[in-house]
């Protein structure tokens, strides 16, 4: 393969070299790289990427080796006795001997393609570069009593590509916690492809907490069958560039989804939550709440889209995005979108952006709270609405503690 990329940036040239160096690239991987070569690293001239320009963030840098892993500290979620899977710089480490009845997981061949994501440049790159995928299945009717913890740990400034495939069986229930940790890779990309079968219940919690220099992209594409429930709560402290995408497709009737996210950003941290919920069948409901807090030069990006096809009557879809800006140089970019082709639906979105309320601050200080305490209490209350959406108390406590620690660092 020669000269796939025309006038590549230093980083794109390094990606090309890394792909060429792959000893086990098959035809589907080559086809995926061809797609990437046509799409290139996304930049601000592409509508969906105008606030999160990966090409610009990566242009000046080059991946440095394969990355070296440090000793891995215990996860704050360890207290929940999870089944812990580590994906370190893309390498999967799963406890093969810890598989409760009704759960099956293992390392498998990477996905050759994901048809609905072939138009996605970073997914194309991921499919071209990823050799192994982590697969997990919860069998029909099984409700797991332990959460699955998938830790994406990236260290050392190299390239990191990973994939997971999840299958929640008919009437099954599972909680998956995903953490994005470590100083970060030059570019980390993770693709999760999943299905929640009829009446299945899936609860996904994401804590994205990497180093300030990291550039990472993660996407989950979930197919939701009839009567299934998908719940997701994400908290991100951002990175040099961090984007979490969620794609939900209601393939069956009467599905339900809750998609909440919060960003706590300081320094030059950037966090992007981009979601697309596609309603293909009638009677599905989605609730979405985003809270972005940006201090210093932090930048909180939210792009939410509800697309309701003609057949999807009685859709009930509500989206709310609120930003709290704590400095003059902080930024929030919201793009709520409704695209509706059905006529009997209830869809709404709201978006606000503001500073801390001076009157509330004065009230709290009159009662004896210092300025710092008063600000922290109001910020915590603002972001807390997302954390409060987590039903399980121990899980909620870990997220609340992370918010409190972030506030503690803001002095």
């Amino acid at each position, binding site marked *: 393969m020669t000269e796939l990329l025309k006038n590549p940036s230093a980083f794109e040239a390094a990606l090309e070299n890394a792909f060429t160096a792959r000893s086990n690239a098959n035809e589907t991987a080559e086809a995926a790289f061809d797609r990437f070569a046509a799409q290139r690293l996304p930049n601000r001239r592409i509508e969906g990427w105008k606030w999160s320009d990966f090409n610009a963030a990566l242009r000046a840098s080059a991946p440095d080796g394969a990355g070296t892993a440090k000793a891995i500290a215990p996860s704050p979620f360890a207290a929940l006795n999870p089944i812990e899977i580590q994906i370190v710089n893309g390498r999967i480490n799963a406890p093969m001997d810890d598989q409760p009845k009704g759960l099956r997981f293992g390392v498998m061949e990477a996905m050759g393609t994901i048809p609905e994501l072939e138009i996605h440049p970073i997914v194309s790159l991921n499919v071209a570069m990823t050799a192994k995928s982590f697969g997990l299945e919860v069998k029909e009717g099984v409700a797991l009593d332990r959460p699955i913890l998938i830790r994406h740990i990236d260290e050392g400034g190299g390239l990191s590509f990973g994939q997971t495939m999840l299958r929640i069986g008919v009437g099954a229930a599972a909680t998956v916690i995903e953490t994005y940790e470590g100083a970060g890779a030059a570019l980390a990309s993770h693709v999760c492809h999943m299905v929640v079968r009829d009446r299945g219940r899936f609860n996904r919690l994401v804590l994205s907490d990497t180093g300030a220099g990291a550039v990472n992209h993660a996407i989950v594409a979930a197919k939701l069958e009839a009567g299934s429930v998908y719940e997701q709560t994400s908290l991100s402290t951002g990175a040099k560039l961090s984007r979490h995408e969620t794609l939900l497709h209601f393939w069956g009737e009467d599905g339900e989804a809750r998609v909440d996210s919060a960003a706590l950003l300081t320094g030059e941290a950037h966090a992007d939550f981009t979601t697309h919920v596609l309603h293909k069948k009638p009677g599905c409901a989605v609730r979405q709440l985003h809270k972005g807090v940006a201090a210093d030069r932090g930048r909180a990006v939210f792009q939410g889209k509800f697309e309701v096809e003609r057949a999807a009557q009685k859709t009930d879809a509500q989206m709310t995005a609120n930003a709290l800006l704590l400095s003059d140089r902080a930024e929030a970019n919201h793009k709520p979108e409704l695209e509706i082709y059905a006529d009997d639906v209830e869809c709404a979105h709201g978006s606000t952006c503001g500073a801390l309320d001076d009157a509330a601050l*004065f009230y709290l200080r009159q009662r*004896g709270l210092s*300025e710092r305490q008063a600000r922290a209490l109001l910020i915590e209350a603002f972001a807390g609405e997302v954390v409060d959406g987590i039903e399980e108390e121990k899980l909620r406590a870990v997220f609340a503690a992370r918010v409190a620690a972030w506030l503690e660092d803001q002095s």
Partner: protein
Amino acid sequence: MLAIDNLHVAVGGAEILKGLSLEVPAGEVHAVMGPNGSGKSTLSYAIAGRDDYEATTGEVTLGGESLLDLDPDERAALGLFLSFQHPMEIPGVQTMNFIRTAINAQRKARGEDEISAADFIREVREKGKLVGLDDAKLKRPFNVGFSGGEKKRMEMLQLAMFKPRFAIMDETDSGLDIDALKMVGEVVNSLRDETRGFLVITHYQRLLDYIKPDAVHVLAGGRIVKSGGPELAKTLEESGYEQFIEAA
């Protein structure tokens, strides 16, 4: 106890208080009455230290300590409490948690021990009963979805919990029915002793039926234009503020 001397306060460049002087000795309750726009709320905010209520000249002391250079929380720690005319709703802030945090912040600033969780819960329930706020209300986010009257009850709950040395009550009576006025009287009267002082700001005489003032001052045009005994409130109720507006 609270001494205000020749206080000038500007808000957004406009002078609202124009040389206000007033003294409330320890153990006394003074009422400040005045028409709309006379500067009553400006007075309460300036004493409590709200940003943008800038004292351009004059002095305010509490127990001999100068307040004007202090932050609002430092003033609170000295024992100054303001019952707000329009109390805030603060979504996401749990009421009991907030009140306890605030009590402990004040205690810490004064070098005192924190209140124990058990003592706090016992007292907040007892005082909640006194002001007419049940447990369910105390567990809600602060004032969220509360009626105007309930918000005033929440102010009185905090007055009872903080037991300040000096309390300013900014139109606490507005929006309250007779039973609630009685409750406000009970809370204030239970705290009245020779070490504490109160400044009751109001339009109307009726609250003063429940909180008997030692002195009444008329605020008009940014100054105290007349001071007298409790009978002055009755005179105002009968003849209105007209004469004082002209005098100012």
